[in-house]
């Protein structure tokens, strides 16, 4: 069974190598390379950059990231559940209903607290 995954692994390597080759070929062999200080300065519409670009950003991005982790894990749990649903029947639905219910309560709380509001 595991040998079926070998082409997948090779394909991943080939994908990365293709990207590498294209950048090397395009950027460092075919293309000119004449850097200068002005050309290499960060793009900011003609101004000098005022401060470091890695600035503080909105807390809501963190909230979205945390919500994403929770829900993505939930999907990871739902995947095997969905496949064996025929075999586990009502018991499976109840168990997943309770699990989803708890998460949905959290989701509703988050919604009411305004974590999903932008602007």
């Amino acid at each position, binding site marked *: 069974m595991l040998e079926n995954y070998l*082409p997948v692994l090779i394909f991943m390597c080939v994908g990365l190598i293709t990207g590498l080759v294209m950048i090397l070929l*395009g950027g460092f062999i075919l293309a000119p390379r004449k850097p200068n200080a002005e050309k290499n300065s960060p793009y*900011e519409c003609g101004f000098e950059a005022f401060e470091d670009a890695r600035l503080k950003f909105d807390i809501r991005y963190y909230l979205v990231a945390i919500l994403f982790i929770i829900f993505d894990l939930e999907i990871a749990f739902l995947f095997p559940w*969905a496949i064996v649903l025929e075999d586990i029947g009502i018991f499976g*639905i109840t168990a997943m209903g309770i699990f989803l219910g708890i998460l949905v309560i959290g989701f509703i709380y988050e919604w009411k607290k305004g974590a999903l509001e932008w602007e």
Partner: protein
Amino acid sequence: MIESMMSFVMPIWEWLPMWIQVLVTNVFFIVIIMVPLMLSVAYVTYAERKIIGYMQVRIGPNRVGPRGWLQPIADAVKLMFKEIIIPTNSNRFLFLFAPMLSMGPALAAWAVIPFADNIQLADVNAGLLYILAMTSMGVYGVIIAGWASNSKYAMLGALRSAAQVVAYEIAMGFALVGVLMAGGSLNLGDIIDKQAGGFFNWFWLPLLPLMVVYFISGVAETNRAPFDVAEGESEIVAGFHVDYSGMAFAVFFLAEYANIIMIAALTSLLFFGGWMSPFGSYADVPLLGNGFHWFVIKTMFFIYMFLWIRATFPRYRYDQIMRLGWKVFIPVTIVWIFVEAVMAVMQIGPWAV
């Protein structure tokens, strides 16, 4: 001639160690998948400009080659000979690594796509899980590119894009759970076999809300209009790849279009029967019956939908995008999964397993 060549080549081939034989065979098949894919990417860009052109009563590119057919080739050559500018403030390694990281998964996801009956590079059990994982990897390329560029536009674009992609990925994942319930397997070949029997046996009918959610999430995942705030020209120039030029930009571009084709192909596989013919009773007749050409036609149709949507809808505001993702799609999919599960277990309607 061919026979004499074969008799010359075969002993050398058999003399090679086993692992080289396996490697060469696999790379050969990978190239067979990748070359048409790259060509499709090139001509999707041409189709995009041409189709949107005609939708806006313009002609579109028509100067390079007959009716502009060589335009994508000319674009590729131009990008190849452009300098890659690496900004002074950037993190050089990550800056060049990010395009590769978006390219790798965008291509690798094609390993498990069934193109026709039993024509598939890797027939793996966890096909759909693998595709979900690979399409999620794309967001790393975006975040790393935005961070490594060390430019404010790139940073803002990357943040927006990442938040949007993860929000829609959840809706997408839930839609896939619905497909799994109907298909009863993670193997893409099995999911298609379950849809045998013509147009009304495909999953789009019992899973209609999930199909709509999946396709719209796909549009949002690939950062396409009307969800393209991450690259909104009028606000943050080009988003996360504002500092990229030449081939480094081209790699991002290729990855984005490979992802578009991927989403279109997946929509046709999961909801529209892949290579199944819409005329169920003619399944064995050539052309009318099942075959690779149906997969291509369906995929092309959904790519056309992408372009059509882009030409039709004005851009969403960022808060509207987040509201649609979190407050509309996720509740809709959760409810539909629950309804589908109950229906399937109670043996009601077309959902009975």
